[in-house]
């Protein structure tokens, strides 16, 4: 868009906007609403399909669609508010839209928050002239276990299919047939599968595409939309939790233009029912002699925790999940480090503060000339919305590369590096790479590490900040404190527990700690906590307690325990944050974190993370025939997803992805069984040849990898006759 300002007259009001601004936006600038259905700027170029936005333009004989028209100097536009002709167009369109639309608003979940209902009340006809049979379809039909489609209500605005085609680019939700028989459909009634499908339920301007979980669950006048941040991945999409009678009933996006642009992934949208999982803990569990874990009172559990802590002073090891809030991690760290002289903690990954020099909002990926994605784990599996930004960059003409040594990288003006590899030291690697490329302080250049944990950075900062002393090595583990469900689900952590004299687990779910904990303290979900998270951009964001958890908040009992060891920990997130903020976030007040948090710089944060030596980005040169197996943690996995029945269809198939080169060398075709082996263990999986995979890389979801990782032997499996 040009920066030249032009004057446009909308309903006799003059307004100055940049030349090329859409007339819908221009009208808004003049304080005039032009109603729309199909228009949605996030879906790409306007299509002018629904005809709701017809306006009269001086000098043009026919009505024009405001959505497709752009501001030119001297343009005089009359909307339906001042032009009888435009009003006629608006009435006609609304009548046509309603001709086949059923009058089932009283039983429609969209009722009360439906753009069609609203516009009909405002501008629509009072009665219908349609006395013939409306088009009828079977209704509603599932287009996936999470989304229902009611074709009778569909007004064919094509928002959903445009999303599928040009935002998520999954190409699964399409329009079929022609004319009045046009319908929205998937291929052969296969479920609409992918990381982002649920967004179509929010894009739909009528009650045609609705989240099945929300069916008959709430009415707009009974619900409260609580603004918070998703805590299921490191992106930290801004969301609303729809709450009715103390229960989360739905998750909606809450557009943060720099982070998510209003798109959220299906895990963030549909996994909330884990809050009410069958094995959700409300009461602590304690191992009682011969009886195994038994429910005990909170008083008893806190006493037991105190006893275990005292017995292991100085020998307590903490395993953190990276899903704790900054405040939780700080409070727990202060208790254990200051009060109990136990400084050892592990996080599933390291996140280098070296990246802070290359911070950018995620939205700037869109304007990059070159995006280098390293690490071979599909971006959507790690940080889903980042995948949408990369796709958007590609549509804008950016080159997406998988090699930082590509000459195009050196030539490009705006370069963004993204590390999407399994665990380990990716953030250091990408920070060093950014340094080598000289990306610091270059306009539009930056680097991202896609962590495995939602708040790994925040937790690391908090743990480091809570105590100035450093502990020495310990020879035995007196007590293992396992914080959070991700840690509790980790096989390695369970192995560590066997070496410990005792284990305390903080977990939401009984199923994760049944066999091996001595004391289980119920945990809360990100939807139940007040506090802050730091996302993969390094952006500090505010979580809100959207509903009351079935158990006390972690801060509450940490504070109580801390008092028993003469450590001062406040039971409120705001107070804990004030303390962390003094040390890490430049004294920012809790209330100033913001509902749509800006990307701030926190120079103090870097001091806590030591600069590390530059590791070889790619390891040794690869032998031509060698294949490295990347076992990635899929988006649809983890404790929350496992507890949501309707998300199970989204879990990855047991299959091995291969590059065409590696497949060809071994005469493997898609569907063939392949044996993957290393050090004597082997798995056999069907192959899928993926044209976008680099040679030398094979990929499998962690849950199908059977522990295999790294350099593997790979061969077509022998035909097994039954």
């Amino acid at each position, binding site marked *: 868009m040009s920066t030249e300002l032009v004057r446009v007259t909308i309903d006799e009001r003059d307004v100055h906007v940049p030349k090329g601004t859409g007339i819908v936006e221009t009208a808004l600038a003049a304080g005039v609403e032009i109603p729309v259905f199909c228009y949605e700027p996030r879906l790409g170029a306007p299509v002018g399909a629904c005809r709701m936005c017809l306006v009269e333009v001086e000098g043009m004989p026919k009505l024009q669609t405001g959505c*497709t028209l752009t501001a030119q100097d001297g343009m005089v536009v009359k909307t339906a508010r001042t032009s009888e002709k435009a009003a006629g167009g608006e009435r*006609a369109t609304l009548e046509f*839209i309603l001709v086949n639309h059923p009058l089932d608003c009283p039983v429609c979940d969209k009722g009360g928050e439906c753009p069609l209902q609203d516009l009909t009340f405002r501008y629509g006809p009072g009665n219908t*002239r349609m006395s013939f049979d409306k*088009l009828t379809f079977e209704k509603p039909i599932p287009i996936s276990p999470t989304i229902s489609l009611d074709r009778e209500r569909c007004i064919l605005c094509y928002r959903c299919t445009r999303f599928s085609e040009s935002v998520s680019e999954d190409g699964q939700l399409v329009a079929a*047939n*022609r*004319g009045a028989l046009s319908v929205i459909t998937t291929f052969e009634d296969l479920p609409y599968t992918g990381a982002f499908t649920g967004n179509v339920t929010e894009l739909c301007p009528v009650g045609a595409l609705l989240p099945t979980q929300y069916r008959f669950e709430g009415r707009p006048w009974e619900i409260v939309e609580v603004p918070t941040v998703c805590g299921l991945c490191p992106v930290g999409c801004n969301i609303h939790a729809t709450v009715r009678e103390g229960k989360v009933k739905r998750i909606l996006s809450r557009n943060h233009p720099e982070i998510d642009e209003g798109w959220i992934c299906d895990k963030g949208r549909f996994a909330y029912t884990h809050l009410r999982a069958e094995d959700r803990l409300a009461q602590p569990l304690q191992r009682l002699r011969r009886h195994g874990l038994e429910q005990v009172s909170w008083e008893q559990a806190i006493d037991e925790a105190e006893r275990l802590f005292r017995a292991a002073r100085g020998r307590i090891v903490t395993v953190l999940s990276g899903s704790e809030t900054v405040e939780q991690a700080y409070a727990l760290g202060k208790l254990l480090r200051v009060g109990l002289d136990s400084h050892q903690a592990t996080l599933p990954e390291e996140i280098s503060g070296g990246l802070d020099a290359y911070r950018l909002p995620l939205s700037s990926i869109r304007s990059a000339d070159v995006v280098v994605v390293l690490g071979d784990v599909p971006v959507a599996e790690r940080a889903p919305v980042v995948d949408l930004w990369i796709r958007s960059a590609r549509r804008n003409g950016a080159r997406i590369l998988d090699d930082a040594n590509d000459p195009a990288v050196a030539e490009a003006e705006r370069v963004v590096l993204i590390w999407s590899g399994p665990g380990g030291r990716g953030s250091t690697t990408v920070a060093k790479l950014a340094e080598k490329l000289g990306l610091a302080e270059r306009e539009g250049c930056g680097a991202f590490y896609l962590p495995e944990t939602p708040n790994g950075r925040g937790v690391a900062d908090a743990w480091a900040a809570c105590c100035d002393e450093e502990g020495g090595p310990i020879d035995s583990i007196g007590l293992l404190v396992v914080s959070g469900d991700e840690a509790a689900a980790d096989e390695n952590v369970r192995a560590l527990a066997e070496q410990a004299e005792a284990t305390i687990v903080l977990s939401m779910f009984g199923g994760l700690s049944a066999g091996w904990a001595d004391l289980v303290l119920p945990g809360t979900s990100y939807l139940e906590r007040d506090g802050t998270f730091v996302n993969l951009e390094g952006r500090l964001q505010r979580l809100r307690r959207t509903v009351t958890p079935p158990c006390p908040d972690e801060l509450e009992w940490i504070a109580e325990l801390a008092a028993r060891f003469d450590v001062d920990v406040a039971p409120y997130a705001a107070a804990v944050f004030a303390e962390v903020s003094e040390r890490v976030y430049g004294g920012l007040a809790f209330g100033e974190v913001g509902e749509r948090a800006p990307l701030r710089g926190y120079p103090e944060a870097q001091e806590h993370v030591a600069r590390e030596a530059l590791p070889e980005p790619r390891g040794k040169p690869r032998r031509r025939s060698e294949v490295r197996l990347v076992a990635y943690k899929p988006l649809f996995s983890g404790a929350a997803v496992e507890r949501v029945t309707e998300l199970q269809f989204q879990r990855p198939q047991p299959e091995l992805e291969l590059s065409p080169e590696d497949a060809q060398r071994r005469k493997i075709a898609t569907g063939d069984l392949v044996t993957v082996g290393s050090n004597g263990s082997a798995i056999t999986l069907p192959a899928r040849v993926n044209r976008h995979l680099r040679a030398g890389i094979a990929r499998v979801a962690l849950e199908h990898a059977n522990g295999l990782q790294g350099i593997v032997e790979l061969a077509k499996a022998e035909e097994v006759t039954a």
Partner: protein
Amino acid sequence: MAEHKVLLAGTDERDLTQLAEYRAIGGYRGVDKARAMTPDALIEELQQANLRGRGGAGFPMGRKASLIDRKSPKPKYLVVNADESEPGAFKDREVMAKAPHRLIEGCLIAAHAIESTDVFIYIRGEYLAEYEILAAAVEEAREAGLFGDVRITVHRGAGAYICGEETALLESLEGKRGQPRPRPPFPPIQGLYMAPTQINNVCTIATVPAILELGAEEFAKTGVPSSPGTAIFSISGNVVQPGNYELDLGTPMRELIYEHAGGIAGGRELKAVIPGGSSVPALTPDQIDVPLDYDSLGAIGTFFGAASLIVVDDRCCMVQLAIRSTKFYAHESCGKCTPCRVGTRWMVQILESIENGTATHADLELLDSVGDNILGKVLCALGEFAVYPVASYLHKWRDEFVAHIEQGGCPFGNSSSLDGILAPSDMHAHTPAGEEALV
């Protein structure tokens, strides 16, 4: 007046599908002439000839070429609209079948004018024989070295009337559903593959060699001043000698119907003429002295359209005519914009209630009003094509519509020439997973 063959010149005497035959009558000399000119001079020549687009809209071809953004760094495309689908029109088909090289020559000249090396001819899928002839002719001309650096690709449609609309054609050619695009941006700025694109009808492009042969000045003297040249008129329906007749623009309609086409068949009375393909307002017998050119037809409230006359005799029930016509446009509606998708189906329902005698007088007003609500509100002209003819039947044969209501059914009984006529939309429609939409 006798026929004046320009587009079809030589086709009676020779097999012009053969390159040698076409060259024997001076074929492809226009290309040499054109290539000796600068693109600017050539466009000037084309503008001077004032050749108006034969696709229906009548926009001057030379002016279209002048609008092409030739400075764009993108490739420039010439696209020939050979998706002839308007009921009543079958002239492009004859040009392609009988004089394919004339079309190809026109392509090469027009491509030179807009500095294009990429030409696509989008031919409707049903025209299989014509495709084979045209593809063979393209191949023959290419092998003869006539193309220079120009590439001509013949692309077949697959059965969708809407792809004759130029932006829907571009969408279809890009491999999408053939749904029209909003304009602006217009194709000369942003057309095929987002690049500057000139789109012309078969007869328009096939006339271009004649302009080069005669020179613009001479060409402009043929036909009538506002519409120079000849046009192939397709005439069908209830006449003795239906077929294609190439005549100077401005020839009286009566001459075409009664002299060339031999008058009304079976000694019946003329009832109506739909002059531009089924999408335009019909004329009554007292209006047929009109000269056949863009402006004269426009002056009496109809359109030159596709230069295709459907002649209707007195056996035909105008309500049935309206139903069959509207069913066609409803069937062909692409489904993109609301008024056309919904309105055409609603019109069919209203018309059927009139025909079966369940309608009231108010339904005539409703039909009119639904039509009005489509006109001027749709994304492309298809929705309007459904309304124009029906509105004309309703206004000019209103008594017949009223008779249906007052008699509680069709005054023709079962004797109308269209009685019981089946439309494709009456057969069951395929919907996902085999379920039937309950239409």
